[in-house]
């Protein structure tokens, strides 16, 4: 394996490990607290739930994209 490829793969593996830790924390902290509130909203206020659902999925995607980009830059910066 070329040294550059090995370096990229190592950086990616580190990023994945850090990301996995963050995601596990996210499952237990954020989703645990969101669950009941969203369930009530889904039963009693469908239209609000629909709007909140889209905002949540778009918001999470933007944050996740920023987190992964930041991690990649940080790890690549250190490995160079």
């Amino acid at each position, binding site marked *: 394996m070329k040294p550059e490829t090995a370096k990229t793969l190592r950086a990616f593996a580190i990023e994945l490990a850090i990301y996995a830790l963050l*995601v596990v924390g996210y*499952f237990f902290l954020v989703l645990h607290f969101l669950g009941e509130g*969203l369930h009530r909203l*889904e039963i009693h206020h*469908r*239209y609000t739930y*629909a709007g909140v659902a*889209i905002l949540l*999925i778009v918001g*999470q995607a933007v944050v996740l994209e920023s987190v992964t980009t930041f991690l990649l830059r940080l790890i690549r910066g250190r490995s160079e």
Partner: protein
Amino acid sequence: MFFPISGAHISPIYLTVAGFLIGILGGFFGVGGSFIAGPALRAAGLDWNFAVGTDLAHIVGKSVVAAKRHRALGNVDLRLGLIMALGTIGGAEAGAQLIQMLKRAGNVNLVVSIVSIAVYLSISTFMLWESRKTLTSQKRLPQGMVKGAKAKQDHSAFMHVTHSIQRLKIWPMIELPVSGVKAISLWVILFVAFVGGLFSGFLGGGAGYIRMPSMVYVLGVPTHLAVGTDLFEIIISASYGTFSHAIKGNVDILIALVMNTGAAVGAQIGAISTQYFAGPKIRLAFVPLPLIGVAIVIYTLMTGHKL
């Protein structure tokens, strides 16, 4: 993990891994990946209505990540994406109405199955023929990485037909400078988007397997831009679909959020990977995707179980 909205118990690791794999496909090919995500959610024990609605919500999140990355790489034509979103939404509504008509006639399953098999097989066969012909006719590209502008220079054995379509002077004509299209009728773009939306409403999912090739062959958009622009367009049309399903009680947003944690990484890998392949190679690699759809439809027809 218990998801109170749908009342399902599903492993978050399963959802994350499924999201990751679908994310790679979506980022690389510009498709929603519903033909895999739907069955994956069904296999996890989710009811069919929740599988469809939740899948759409997950597609929104994954497409945001992939489209952001593609935009950073210069692969998104915002003007084209916005125009196409209008046609797609109109087409999706028409497709849903068509389904209702067939339901009333009582032969919806058979008609949809036969149409989908014919459409998927046609796309795969045509793309296999075109991409192989293009690859053999053009000069061999340098080995290894084809990054940046060189990778985006696109060739197609179908280009003569594309040029004829671009020469149709049906007012209003518009320019798509980002995609390198000097003039094309607005109606042609809306028609392509409408047909994609029609199949989306008729066959389910985002119909990226129809829209992405249509953008390349009918509109003349380079493959890399077609992938990025399709993802941007999917954000709008899938958001509309998510809202529509959520008010009908078909979306478990918690499941979509968990899936999206895997999809966020996968979509970035897929999007970055497009930089290493020339357009015809991406199109050749696209060929098996509609065939997966064919396999799922045939399985459904033979067993009666909807995946």
